[in-house]
């Protein structure tokens, strides 16, 4: 395909820019030189505090959340063989959202640390229900996507019921649902990191199988792939990646939808090349979006999920127009 080396250079530069901007910009701006001197060990202690305890974990979370969501989207698109599949479309995010909103609104006294776990469990329940339906009824992938949508609609109704019932505190829940990285700390980084580390080798293990799966069920099983088995593995991987990123950041939309598209355009459809680029693009998009959300109406913040929607929507529309 096209030249991946050149591409990686550009992506690395973009990533570095996004990372630096994410560290520098915000209510308190930190200049490039100040960052340098802080890393050399002699800098303003207040800036050091901001940088190490707020900006750095947040930036790392952006990278990981973006990467994980993008990969989950790529896996689902390969699995469902439909370019419109994504963790949000098949209802996983809705399951996580329902669990989180219930904790936030029904148990206002609960410690904040529980919310990520609840969200993860919510996404897993949704994934398990989908998997049960898929294996029990041997659904074709596209029907699986629509089943996910039906389950997601039910979770969505639950979210609406709980938020409308507890209207006065609904804003906290809405903010979480919109996807925000505000106030996240190292605790969240440690929560996400092991999963991100597991995801990388998994992705190389799966990439070839995803390619084979694109040939169709018959060809794939003819080539010795256990289609049923590999589908369950892929769906599990997507559920875990989505669950954990939604758990720490709320429902950030569109990354899982558009990052794989961009990557496919840059590297072609072979997953071995495409998956790493997808992850990088996801990370870059979320990191940039987070910066934008922080500076447009500073000192207030636009939730990162809204920024990704605003960036993602036009690209998505462009894709639609382009396809003709």
């Amino acid at each position, binding site marked *: 395909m096209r030249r991946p080396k050149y591409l990686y250079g550009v992506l690395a530069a973009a990533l570095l820019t996004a990372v630096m901007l994410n560290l520098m910009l915000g209510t308190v701006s930190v200049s490039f030189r100040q960052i340098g001197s802080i890393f050399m060990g002699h800098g303003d202690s207040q800036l050091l505090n901001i940088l190490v305890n707020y900006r750095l974990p947040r930036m790392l979370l952006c990278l990981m959340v973006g990467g994980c969501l993008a990969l989950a989207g790529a896996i689902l698109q390969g699995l469902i063989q*439909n370019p*419109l*599949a*994504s963790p*949000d*479309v098949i209802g996983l995010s809705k399951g996580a959202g329902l669990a989180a909103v219930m904790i936030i609104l029904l148990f206002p006294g609960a410690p904040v640390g529980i919310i990520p776990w609840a969200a993860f469990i919510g996404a897993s329940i949704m994934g398990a229900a989908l998997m049960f*339906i898929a294996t029990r*009824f*041997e*659904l*074709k992938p*596209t*029907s699986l*996507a*629509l*089943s996910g*949508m*039906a*389950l997601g*609609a*039910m979770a*969505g*109704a*639950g979210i*609406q*019921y709980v*938020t*409308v*019932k507890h*209207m006065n505190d*609904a*804003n906290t829940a*809405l*903010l979480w*649902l*919109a996807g925000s990285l505000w106030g996240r700390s190292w605790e969240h980084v440690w929560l996400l990191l092991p999963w991100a580390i597991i995801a990388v080798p998994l992705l190389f293990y799966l990439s070839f199988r995803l390619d084979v799966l694109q040939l169709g069920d018959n060809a794939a099983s003819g080539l010795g792939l256990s289609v049923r088995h590999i589908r369950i593995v892929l769906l599990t991987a997507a559920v875990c990646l989505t669950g954990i990123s939604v758990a720490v950041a709320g429902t950030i*939309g*569109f990354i899982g*939808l558009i990052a794989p598209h961009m990557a496919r355009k840059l590297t072609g459809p072979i997953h071995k090349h495409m998956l790493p680029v997808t992850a990088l693009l996801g990370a870059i998009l979320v990191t940039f979006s987070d910066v934008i959300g922080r500076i447009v109406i500073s000192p207030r913040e*636009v*939730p990162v*999920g*809204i920024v990704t*929607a*605003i960036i*993602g*929507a036009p690209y*998505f*529309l462009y894709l*639609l*127009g382009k*396809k*003709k």
Partner: protein
Amino acid sequence: MTATDAVTRRVFASYLFIGLLLAATGFIWSVSLGVTDLRWNDVLQGLLGGKETKEQLVISTIRVPRALVAALAGAALAVAGALMQAMTRNAFASPQIFGINAGASFFVVLFIVFFPGISSSALVFAAFAGAFMGGLLVFILGYSNDHRTPVQLALAGIAVSMLLSAMTEGFIVLYDNQTKNVLFWLAGAVHNGTWKDVHTVIPWSLTGMMIALLLSRSLTILSLGDDIARGLGQNILFIRLAVSCTVIMLAGSAVSIVGPIGFVGLIVPHIVRHWVGVDYRFILPLTAVFGSVLLLYADIVSRFISYPFESPVGIVTTGIGAPYLLYLLLRRRGRL
């Protein structure tokens, strides 16, 4: 008239009778139910006029418009769904799945945010524009795909709906001073329906349903396939255009008043088609009646969920509709 036709007519007549009976019962039940519990003869007296009492006032200013809004919106959404299913020959076609509800609600929220004092009769036009945009996006997306299947078009619709509702939610979070009313409306609510709402929605939904009935014969032919319809002398382009406008009119006006209530347009036509077959002259009236029935009873159920809190009716229709969608998918899995 063939024998089967006569049978269908009889089936149609009996279901129509049952439907109207259910609708009337639901209407009276809906009017009688609430914080001020009324007895049925109070209700009948209140509906028929008579003396000016407190009960009568409650009935004529709160309960009756609410029930009317539910009945009208239910019929409009269900007929819109039936029209879409006939036109696209797609079992999953409905205002909700094909992005029309989401488009309408996005525009309504947009206009509420940027023109805070906007009147509800102007919001209807915002909803029309949004419904048009949502539907158009789905069709561009769905028909640009080379090997499109019903499920793939539905997936395109879900993606577009998601996009629109993400932007809607974004506006709600950013401009949270009007959030309270909008949130409730977004969940689908008929409980604060007023006479003004009834007057806003009635011309559009009645006109829409009249046009739909006039088109019913052509719809039956169109649902057989483009080639057959063309062979039988139908002007396909014109029919499609007329049907699309009607769908936007029906769904847009309903959504602007009661919010994006889901699944009514999906399940009612399915059930009705199961009873009376493929002839849209029979399907459409029954769809309208049973759409009203569904929303009237869903509204009644919604009041019981956590009485005296008024739960949004949309969660009841989703609670019924989403499992039905799953059932449809599983039953048809061989053919998708």
